C-alpha cells in the first residue's frame, strides 16, 4: 500500500504477516503477552523513578535528571489532578474537535480531487508537478501562515491538519481508482451502467475502500496537525497546555501532556479499528477460521 507516512500502526499487521509465514513458531499466549507488556512498562517506570529520586541516586544527579525528565509520580499526580478537577476536558474537546474537522475536510477534499484527477487524464497531467511539489514540501512550515490567515483559533489548526490528511487520502483514492479491476468495470458496463453509475457503484466504493485502509494514518495525521498547530500558537487545547508548561520549565506538566496525548491517540486508533471492521465487512480476511 502506498501509505508510507509516519505514524501508521503497521507493527501489529507486520507481526501477523510474520506469524502467518512461520506457523511452527506459535506466538506467545494472550496473558503471557499482557504480562510482558506490563513488565516492560513497570521496568521503564522503575528505572525512571530510581534515577530521579534522591537517596536512590546521589541527590545532585537525581535532581538534575529530574529537571530534564520529570518525576514519574509528579507526572501521574498532574494527570490525575487534570482529570479530577476537570481542567483537561475543554482542552481535550478542542483537540478532538480540531482532529475530527481536519480529518473530515481533508478526506472529502482528497476523495473528490482524487476521483477527479484519476478519471481525467488531462487534468491529472496538468496537476501532476504541483501535486508532487506540494506533497514534497514539509507542510508543518505552513502553520505560521495559517495562524496569520485564520488566527489562533480552531481554524488554523484544522487547516494544518487538512494539508496533512489531504495527501494521504488523495494518493489512496488515486491509486484506488487506477486499480479498479478492468473485468469488474467491463462487467458493470455490460450490465448497463452509465458513466455516472460507474462512478457511484464502481469507482467510489473501490476508492473508499482504499481511504478506509489508510484511515489509521489519516486520523493520526489530523491529530498531529491539531497538536502541532496548538503548540505553535493557540489559546486552548492539549498542545497549548504543553506550550504553557514548557514556558515555565515545568517538565512534569509537559510529560503529563504527552502522556495524555498518547493515551488519547491510542483511544482514537482503537475507535478507528472498530469503525474499519464495520465498514469493510466485504473485504476478504486472510484467516477465516476461529480456534475453539
Amino acid at each position, binding site marked *: 500500500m502506498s501509505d508510507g507516512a509516519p505514524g501508521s500502526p503497521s507493527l501489529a499487521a507486520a507481526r501477523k504477516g510474520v506469524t502467518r509465514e512461520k506457523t511452527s513458531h506459535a506466538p506467545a499466549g494472550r496473558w503471557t503477552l499482557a504480562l510482558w507488556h506490563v513488565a516492560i512498562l513497570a521496568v521503564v517506570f522503575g528505572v525512571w523513578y530510581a534515577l530521579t529520586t534522591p537517596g536512590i541516586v546521589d541527590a545532585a544527579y537525581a535532581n538534575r535528571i529530574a529537571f530534564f525528565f520529570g518525576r514519574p509520580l509528579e507526572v501521574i499526580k498532574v494527570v490525575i489532578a487534570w482529570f479530577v478537577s476537570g481542567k483537561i476536558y475543554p482542552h481535550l474537546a478542542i483537540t478532538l474537535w480540531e482532529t475530527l474537522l481536519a480529518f473530515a475536510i481533508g478526506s472529502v477534499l482528497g476523495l473528490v480531487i482524487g476521483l477527479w484527477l484519476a478519471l481525467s487524464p488531462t487534468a491529472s497531467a496538468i496537476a501532476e508537478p504541483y501535486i508532487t511539489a506540494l506533497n514534497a514540501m514539509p507542510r508543518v512550515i505552513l502553520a505560521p501562515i495559517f495562524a496569520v490567515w485564520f488566527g489562533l483559533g480552531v481554524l488554523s489548526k484544522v487547516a494544518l491538519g487538512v494539508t496533512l490528511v489531504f495527501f494521504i487520502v488523495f494518493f489512496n483514492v488515486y491509486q484506488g481508482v487506477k486499480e479498479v*479491476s478492468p*473485468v*469488474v468495470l*467491463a*462487467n*458493470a*458496463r*455490460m*450490465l*448497463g*451502467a*452509465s458513466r455516472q*453509475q460507474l462512478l457511484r*457503484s*464502481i469507482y467510489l*466504493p*473501490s476508492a473508499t*475502500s482504499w481511504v478506509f485502509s489508510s484511515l489509521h494514518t489519516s486520523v493520526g495525521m489530523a491529530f498531529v496537525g491539531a497538536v502541532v498547530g496548538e503548540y505553535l500558537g493557540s489559546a486552548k487545547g492539549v498542545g497549548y497546555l504543553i506550550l504553557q508548561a514548557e514556558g515555565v520549565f515545568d517538565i512534569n506538566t509537559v510529560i503529563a501532556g504527552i502522556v495524555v496525548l498518547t493515551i488519547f491517540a491510542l483511544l482514537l486508533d482503537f475507535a478507528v479499528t472498530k469503525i474499519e471492521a464495520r465498514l469493510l*465487512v*466485504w*473485504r*476478504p480476511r486472510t484467516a477465516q477460521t476461529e480456534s475453539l
Partner: protein
Amino acid sequence: MNATAHAAAPARSAAPALAFERVTCAFAGKNAGERYTAVADTSLVVGDGEFVSVVGPTGCGKSTLLNVAAGLLAPSAGRTLVAGEPLSGINARAGYMFQADALMPWRSALGNVSAGLQFRGVARDVAAARAREWLARVGLTGFENGYPHQLSGGMRKRVALAQMLILDPEILLMDEPFSALDIQTRQLMENELLDLWSSNRKSVLFITHDLEEAIALSDRVIVLSAGPATHPIGEFAIDLPRPRDVAEIRLSPRFVELHEAIWHVLKSEVLKGYAQGKRSAQ
C-alpha cells in the same frame, strides 16, 4: 441508456442474432510501428436461439472475438451485426459472463444480482425481489447476504449467471465461464446452463478450450486456428439429441465420432499454438 433496447419486445427477425463480417483486430505491439493481429478476417454467424461454441488453442484470440461481440472492443476492420443492425458502443442486447471473477466485491450476492436492474432505474425493492427469485433459481437461497469472498468458486459463477440472466438478454456471451471450476461442479453448472437455456432459447456464443464441453453443450462448434491472425478453420453441426445430460452424453457413440472428427482439425492447431508458446517463452 440501454433501457429502451431491453424494454422493446425483441423482434425475432430472419436476421441472425449475431454476425461477424470479416472482422480483424490488430493491436499496437511493444515497439513503435509493430502490430499484433489477434483476429484476422473472421466471419461467423450465431443464429437466433442457437448455441454456438468456439474452440481453439489457448491464447488464440477467442476472448478478443467475444469482446468485439460485446462492443467492449471495436474491430480494426470489418463490422459486427446484432439482429441485422451494425453494432456501435456496448451491445445492449447481450449479457456477458467473464472468465475471471467479475462480481463487485463490495456488494453482497443480492446486490450483485440486482445491480443491472438498478442501473436501469428499477426501484430498489422490486430489483431486490427479482434478484431473490434469480438467486433461488440458481440454487443460492440463503446466500443472499454473502459477499463474493465468502462464496465458493462455483457459487460465485452462479451469482454471475443470475446477474447476467436477470436482465433477460437476447444474446449470451460466455468466455470460458466454468474453466476455473472442478470437474463435478463444472458438469453441474453446464447442466444448469442447458436447463436455463432450453426454457427460453437464447442465442449463445460460448468460448472454451475444452472440446468435450463444446460438443456437449452446442448446436454448432467452430474451430479457430492458432494465433496470431486467428480465423475459423472448421465448422461442425452437433446433431446430438436434446435434452442432454453433459455427463452421460460423453459416452454416446455419436459424441465420440464428433469428438474424433473435430479433434482431427483442432489437434494440429493446438500443437502449433504450443510450439509458438514455447518459442516465445525462450
